[in-house]
């Protein structure tokens, strides 16, 4: 077995973000829909949950498919986080910090954009609204690398490599 690093905190962070990212991608559409339905029904959480379950596979709704579609970019991001942060412990601390900044911004972009898109879609439903669920994963697949690049760039500005010790010879 090859040991890639011994930093337990980083390992737990990578694993936590990995599973958190996957679960968030899967359940976000459901959370938004149930919350919206419950607020529309003036607090009827049980009824909203039952309504959501009923439409999981219903023709014309298929909330299950919406959850799967939304999860695709989050799963890819999760795999990237697992490998990228999971193997970071072998690197210099400054590199770890830069990676963490990149991942944080990529996550913020994915979570923020996806949440915004789902909230807007349920608040302003129209005939073409469902197209959002097909195009959102495609947009996220473009935005996540962009977010990571921005975060990594910011990390390079914030976390400088320490200057090499002066040559005493």
């Amino acid at each position, binding site marked *: 077995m090859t*040991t*890639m690093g011994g930093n337990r905190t*980083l390992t737990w962070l*990578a694993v936590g973000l990995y*599973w958190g990212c*996957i679960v968030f991608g899967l359940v976000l559409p459901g959370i938004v829909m149930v919350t919206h339905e419950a607020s529309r029904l003036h607090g009827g959480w049980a009824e909203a949950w039952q309504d959501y379950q009923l439409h999981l596979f219903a*023709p014309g709704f298929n909330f299950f498919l919406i959850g799967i579609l939304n999860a695709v970019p989050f799963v890819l991001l999760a*795999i990237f986080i*697992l490998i990228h942060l999971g*193997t970071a412990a072998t690197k210099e601390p400054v590199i770890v910090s830069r990676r963490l900044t990149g991942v944080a911004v990529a996550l913020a972009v994915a979570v923020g954009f996806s949440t915004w898109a789902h909230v807007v879609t349920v608040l302003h439903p129209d005939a073409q609204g469902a197209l959002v669920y097909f195009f959102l994963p495609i947009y996220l697949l473009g935005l996540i690398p962009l977010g990571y690049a921005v975060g990594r760039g910011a990390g390079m500005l914030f976390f400088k490599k320490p200057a090499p010790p002066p040559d005493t010879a």
Partner: protein
Amino acid sequence: MTRKQIFLNLGGLVVLIGLLGLFYWQSTGERAVPAMTAALEDSDSKVRIGAAQMLAEIGPAATPAVPNLLNLALHDPVLYASTTAAGALSRIDLGAARQVMTANLAALQDPDVQNRRTACAMLGSLGPVAKPAVPALNTALDDEEETIRMHAVGALGEIGIPAALVVPALTRALHDKAPQVRHRALMQFAFLIPPTDSVLPHLKELAEDKTPNIATLAKSALNSPHRQGNQTVMYATMLQMGTVNDYTLRQLAQLGPAAAGAVPAVIPILSNERPLHRYLAAEILGAIGPGAKEAIPALTAALQDEDAVVRESVTEALLAIRPTDGTDRTTTQK
């Protein structure tokens, strides 16, 4: 983090995907029928409606749910639940759908306006399966209540066949004294029923109507996509490419003899697993008439169809294709 830890987490993801696939498999298709049948008895009408929609999507595999759907269609206090159940029955069991039709045909004569209105909505929700109800709905166009005439127009549009009866009835409704009824009739020609040449003068007249929304809708009907290009070729191509759905088949059934070019694409549908599709295929061939001669062997085989409504439609189609056939055989025997 070790390689093993990484692979364990990736393996966990694979397991999760597998579990989601299993959940999907368990919740769809005929495996979902028992749960959906139970949901038809739920106290919440939304649950009952959702379950009926799911069963309609499942199709003939949902046959065990037919008694419950029939009960919902005939006795549910919520009209939308009843119409959804009736629509589901027309996709699962044509015989049961015809039972709903028979029950509602009598209600068209009910002295209570609400009951007559419900009967129109129910007959419309059955779609083309309620073809025998067309003459009664045609009579309902003379009802003294505007709302009944309007709903009868809607039902005729949803049933759509036979075009030879539906189109003249809807054309008559284009001149109803109530603007709402004229508007509803125009909607049928704009969106559901291909306007034939005999309808065009009436549509042109309404395009000059003083009521703006009627004039606009009449212009839409005149420019209806159903009148653009060769509809037969388009629908036949869709069938050959595997797009066999209620809409395509219904549109072809409404084209009548003009759909003769689609016969080779329609013949295989006589052995489709869905009784509604087999029924519509027989209706298309019957509406084409003598131009569908090459379908006679397939139609003859379809006389053994397990569904009585399909067999009835096949018999009618054979008579329409070779109307003198029975007489000839009798003469030969003599």
